[in-house]
């Protein structure tokens, strides 16, 4: 892990517990994922699910925010943002898909159990699932998408995938061919940002995966993120109790997303750090132009390696900048404020775009070793591109930026 310390991060803002957690996660990711990759490849049952269980249950990532009284670790101050980054960098270095799932869980925890905005009722209802079970709880979101079949109600130009109506203390949900953010096959809990029939205000509703009326399609083939076995989900008259509606406000919704994007920003850095280690080994050992020239000492390949390091460095700084912003709502505003949320979206897009470029270049440097599965680089390339696609269109995100910075209103 010493090599990763070459990439500066605000160690002076992290607690010793964060550093210790990161070190443990580093070792676990190495032992349980990286070292087993050549043997198990992308096998879900043999590799990914067990390591997810270790992270979520043994290491306790799925208990992090919940109140101690409910079995959680109550690490739920805003400064937990640093913990999230320190942790997910390491998890992402092991496997982007696994880290992607953990980021879902942490975002939901932050939305419900953050000290300043603790949702007592929801915590009491959902914490036990996370704190008492021996299996990892896979959380997935059902969010509005950019581009639909023209029939769904819209929100900021995006189309809701799920509609809800409230009656007699029960929410009833409808959604056909809904595309979850992850794990349509496996998720135990879906968080849906729903259009509410007859009302302007949407609702964020938690739906247990085994609720009656939920059916799941076959697993998609996709370019990456093997840990997220995704599938379409259909909700036909699914009923959940009123308490499952966690919030109705955009502030809370944006808060959830800010923490989610923080996790993805850190996950991306993790992928970049993995690429760095693979490239470093290549640069140390590959000999080119006959016998006398080591790869990293060639002025052209050495310069490109330097450029890649620059990209990684900037990404890591920015992920921690976002942590710093979320850690101090007094200065920067609530995680759900428009400004902070805009920054979260900018940084996650920035990091994913940087990662795309940097890993592309790493592959170019490694030529056929770059795309051979044996060298393990290509999976970070596929996985991070998939995260970027699932994050959503950069064009649409830019409209959000314009709303904040220029006061655009109709985009």
């Amino acid at each position, binding site marked *: 892990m010493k090599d990763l310390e070459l990439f500066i991060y605000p160690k002076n803002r992290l607690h010793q517990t964060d550093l210790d957690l990161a070190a443990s996660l580093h070792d676990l990711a190495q032992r349980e994922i990286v070292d087993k990759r050549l043997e198990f*490849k992308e096998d879900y049952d043999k590799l990914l699910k067990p390591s997810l269980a270790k992270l979520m249950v043994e290491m306790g990532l799925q208990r992090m925010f919940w109140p101690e009284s409910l079995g959680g670790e109550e690490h739920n101050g805003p400064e937990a943002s640093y913990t999230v980054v320190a942790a997910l960098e390491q998890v992402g270095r092991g496997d982007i898909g696994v880290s992607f799932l953990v980021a879902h869980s942490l975002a939901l925890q932050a939305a419900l159990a953050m000290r300043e905005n603790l949702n007592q009722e929801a915590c009491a209802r959902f914490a036990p699932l996370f704190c008492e079970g021996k299996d990892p709880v896979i959380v997935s979101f059902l969010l509005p*998408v*950019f*581009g*639909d*079949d*023209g029939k769904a109600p*819209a929100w900021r*130009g995006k*189309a809701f995938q799920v509609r809800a109506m409230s009656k007699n203390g029960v929410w009833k949900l409808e959604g056909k061919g809904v*595309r979850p953010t992850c794990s349509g096959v496996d998720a135990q809990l879906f968080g849906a940002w729903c259009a509410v029939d007859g009302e302007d205000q949407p609702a964020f509703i938690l739906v247990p995966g085994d609720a009656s009326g939920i059916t799941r399609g076959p697993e*998609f*083939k*996709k*370019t*990456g*993120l093997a840990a997220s076995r995704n599938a379409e989900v259909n909700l036909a008259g699914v009923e959940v109790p009123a308490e499952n509606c966690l919030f109705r406000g955009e502030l809370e919704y944006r808060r959830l997303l800010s923490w989610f994007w923080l996790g993805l920003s850190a996950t991306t850095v993790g992928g970049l750090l993995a690429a760095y280690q693979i490239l470093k080994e290549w640069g140390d050992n*590959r*000999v*080119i*132009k*006959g*016998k006398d020239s080591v790869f990293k000492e060639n002025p*052209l*390949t050495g310069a*490109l390696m330097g450029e890649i390091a620059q990209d990684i460095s900037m990404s890591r700084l920015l992920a921690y900048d976002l942590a710093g912003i979320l850690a101090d709502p007094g200065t920067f505003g609530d995680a759900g404020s428009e400004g902070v949320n805009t920054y979260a979206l900018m940084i996650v897009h920035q990091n994913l775009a940087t990662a*795309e470029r940097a890993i*592309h270049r790493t*592959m*170019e*440097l490694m*030529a*056929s070793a*770059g*795309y*051979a*599965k*044996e060298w393990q680089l*290509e999976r970070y*390339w*596929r996985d991070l*591109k*998939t995260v*970027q*696609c*699932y994050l*959503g*269109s*950069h*064009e*649409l995100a*830019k*409209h959000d930026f314009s709303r904040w910075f220029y006061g655009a209103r109709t985009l």
Partner: protein
Amino acid sequence: MRSIDVFSRPLEYLTPLGEQVGEIIRDWVEREVIPYRRQFDEDYLEHRYILPPFKKLLGEYGIQRILFPEDLGGWGLGHSDYLCVAAFRMFEEIARADSGMAVAFGVVFWPLVLICCEPHVNRRLCEEFAPMFTSTTEPVFSCMAMTEPQGGSDIENMEVLKGSTIRTTAVRDGDEWVINGHKLWPTNTGGVANLMAVVCTTNPGSRNPDDIAIIFVPCDIPGVTQGPAYEKAGMAADKNGDIWFENVRVPLWYRACGPGDDARYYGEIVSMGNMGSIAFAVGVMLNIYEKLQEYVERKTYRGMPLKENDAVAGVLADFAATVEAVRIIGYQCARMCDRQDLYGPRWSPEIVARARAHRYFAADRALEAIGKVMNLMECFGADRDWDVEKHWRDIKMVQLWLGGKQLSQMEVARWFFECETL
């Protein structure tokens, strides 16, 4: 919806034969490949699904014969001055469905260029190998065995290393070559190839071009062993593996062009490889154009098709502009390789440098453009069902092969700026 034929190319360069074969391939692709290509993508080890359509195209339609002289049962395209433009069209059409198949297809002809094209037609070898391709309706594959384990792209770096790092040896023993060595990564290995051209040295460590020998080796003779196909990020239809040569014996006259000429005409292999790579990129982009048209028409945004949103249209325009540019560059590259009377011999360092420049420029642009399309399509961009992600994975390899980008840059700089020590 507009057809994929809207993108510019120099109409002056087209020939009836090329266009006709192009149409045949388009028809084949639409019936035999596109409906099944998602299966092909899982078929990298067995080629159970991939082989039958190849049998039809190469064997039954007989396209595997095209390079050979007409009197040997071929179509004489090796003699023509429109081979590359015709090939460009064929490659585009196949790559539109599956660029892995386009590569496997292209490499059938790659080594044959050395014996079928003027000014270095090797009539005796044509006679020897033509029947292999012309007398069967089974598909016949060739391969060009270059890369070695220790050297990476050293072989492709002919101008600097002049073959001095080649470790696969060809030793003369009476009227036979005895070949020993280990090659990896060639397209159509992993058990596919029937005939190989092997880049050997007759004098290890030598920088004398006379000592580089390109020798044809039928794959079924003793001493040739092929390993299983590698697992790669994409291009399932292009099998790559190891080949070991252990005291493989072939007649002396299986050498492609002879001392000095093998090294010289190797440049042609590089130029044409680069030209073909651009065609693969174009083909892929043509299919993405179709998919994208469908996507932005079908999906809506605020009640209008997505394409009516100006921000989306900006991405669409950039994609279209890239296809325009890359296709024009590609056809000019092909033409340059065809009309050696105007542009100079295609094995010359000049044409090799130009073709490398065209290729890496094109591949970089294509990849960038495709990446943006994927992001525009959000989760559907990463989805096997929309096929864009498959093209993206595949085309990355097109960018990386033939020695990678850095080697290309060095050759381009060397020629355009007369660098001497790179």
